[in-house]
């Protein structure tokens, strides 16, 4: 049987990854990022500038049409992307900032610390993710920052688990025992040996969570819990679009497509990162 598996090493099954697709996704993300950063400078209508043409279909004046207050949908979508990206980014950063130390401590210290941390994480996981985000938003009040915080907290269990798993895997490596036997301190062990190997899965997890964060932020705004007026958000735009479904179906298409494409592109990027950095996962 040894031979049969040796042969597998020779004939690797490479899923024909459409490389061009990945590049397209990265370019799309880059464009969105640039749009988000330079939104204010772009030659667009203001996102709260109301106009006479209400619920107008797409035209040369308004590429994606207007909403019920005559506001340009294209402008609102661009700013909505900006909102989605920065709220999601803060959410991911928060979840990493909290989850990574938790995972590191749980993995390295073990014992009571680990047990307590794991129980807390389990308790957080007892809530379905979206519901937890809704609950936290309810308590913290609505607004972009509380949405970001909610996203951060919801993302902690996964990040902490992944980091802890990576730490445990590294800890059991012989060279850690060897280092300890020589007398290297715990701190040095962590820095030199364990941290570098934890970085990869953590990055992959952050990338994966980013797309979840985008969807969750949109969901929160859809429910009225996320960013508030006047800041435009793709989710709240869809909520309004729902009311005018029969009158202006195009209203719903653009924000939804924007979210979907963002998430798709992010997922592709995350998968590619995972294949490069942490293929075992």
């Amino acid at each position: 049987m040894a031979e049969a598996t040796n042969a597998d090493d020779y004939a690797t099954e490479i899923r024909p990854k459409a490389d061009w697709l990945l590049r397209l996704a990265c370019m799309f993300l880059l464009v969105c990022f640039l749009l988000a950063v330079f939104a204010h400078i772009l030659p667009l209508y203001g996102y709260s500038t109301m106009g006479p043409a209400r619920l107008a279909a797409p035209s040369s004046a308004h590429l994606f049409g207007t909403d019920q207050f005559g506001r340009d949908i294209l402008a609102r979508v661009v700013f909505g992307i900006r909102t989605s990206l920065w709220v999601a980014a803060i959410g991911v950063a928060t979840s990493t900032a909290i989850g990574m130390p938790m995972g590191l401590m749980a993995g390295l210290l073990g014992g009571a610390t680990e047990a307590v941390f794991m129980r807390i994480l389990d308790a957080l996981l007892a809530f379905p993710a979206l519901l937890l985000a809704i609950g936290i938003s309810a308590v913290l009040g609505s607004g972009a920052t509380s949405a970001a915080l909610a996203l951060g907290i919801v993302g902690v269990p996964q990040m902490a688990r992944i980091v802890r798993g990576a730490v445990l895997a590294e800890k059991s490596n012989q060279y850690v025992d060897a280092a300890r036997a020589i007398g290297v301190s715990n701190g040095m062990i962590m820095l030199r040996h364990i941290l570098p190997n934890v970085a990869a899965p953590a990055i992959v997890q952050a990338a994966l969570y980013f797309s979840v964060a985008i969807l969750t932020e949109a969901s929160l705004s859809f429910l009225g819990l996320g960013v508030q007026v006047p800041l435009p958000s793709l989710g709240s735009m869809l909520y309004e679009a729902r009311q005018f479904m029969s009158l202006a179906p195009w209203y719903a298409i653009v924000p939804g497509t924007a979210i979907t494409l963002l998430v798709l592109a992010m997922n592709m990027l995350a998968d590619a990162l995972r294949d490069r950095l942490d293929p075992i996962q």
Partner: protein
Amino acid sequence: MGPFVLRRLLDSLPVILLALMIIFAGLRLAPGDPAEMLAGPDPSSATIAAIREAMGLDRSIPAQFILWLRAALSGDLGLSLVNGLPVSELVGDRIGPTVELAIAGLFLSLVIGLTTGLAAGLRPGSLTDRLVSTFASLGLATPKFWSGILLIIVFGLNMRWFPVAGRTGFSDGVFEAVRSLALPALTLAIGNAPIIARFLRNSIIEARKSDHVLTAMSKGLPMRLVVRDYVLRNSLIPVVTAAGIILGNLVGGTALVEIVFSWPGLGSLLINAIGNRDYSVVQGVMVVVVAGFLLSSILVDILYGVLDPRIRQVNHG
């Protein structure tokens, strides 16, 4: 099997307790004074104080928690801060439609996910496989509320095959009930079937390469028996994992779908309560949802034990 189930239940007790503590903490941290809100318009401070005492809000936090816990366990989830009705009643009215929707969503997700995952897994690299993969990626990326709206526009408004909002109960006719359930359940399935499909596809491909499949083939068994007993049977376990994952998505997703379709369930109750700052109702819904979610997680674990004899063994110690 019995000891395994018992152990699983016991293991989840501390988690349930912690989760309830989190809900209670949220309740206390929420802005607004419940006593004031219940007292009605222009209350005197004496009224407020009386209500506060009746609700036990003058006691210490741990004592409050115990009180609250005891009440919750006996079915008393408090009173709505907006209309004074018992929360358990409000929840009770709405829980049926939500469960209905969640089960329908689960069912559709399984049906679509299992068939597509099977087709893709048995023919890896084929056109079928790539098509399934593409639709899976799309389905996962699409926000549920958007696919719901799109479905309404296409099938509800344009083609008029399905109603666009509201729910028809089963007592009013099975056909109509199913019709009103179809689009909401499909919306849930679009986001969750891909997870099932991917898990099944990958586990079939893995199982096919495994050594016990080679042994089965060396015994001269025909391919269909090998696929049935050595590939598919083993692929089911990861599917249970996938089902466990989508449970959370389904429960959370119903909140969104209920708003889109005006479905009278717990999700819309929750969102309305948040809008009204009725934290009493919020807390009640959370307790019920978390309890239900944990229960279904335990059921999933038990299912694991049924399918994989090694799991049963491990838990015996």
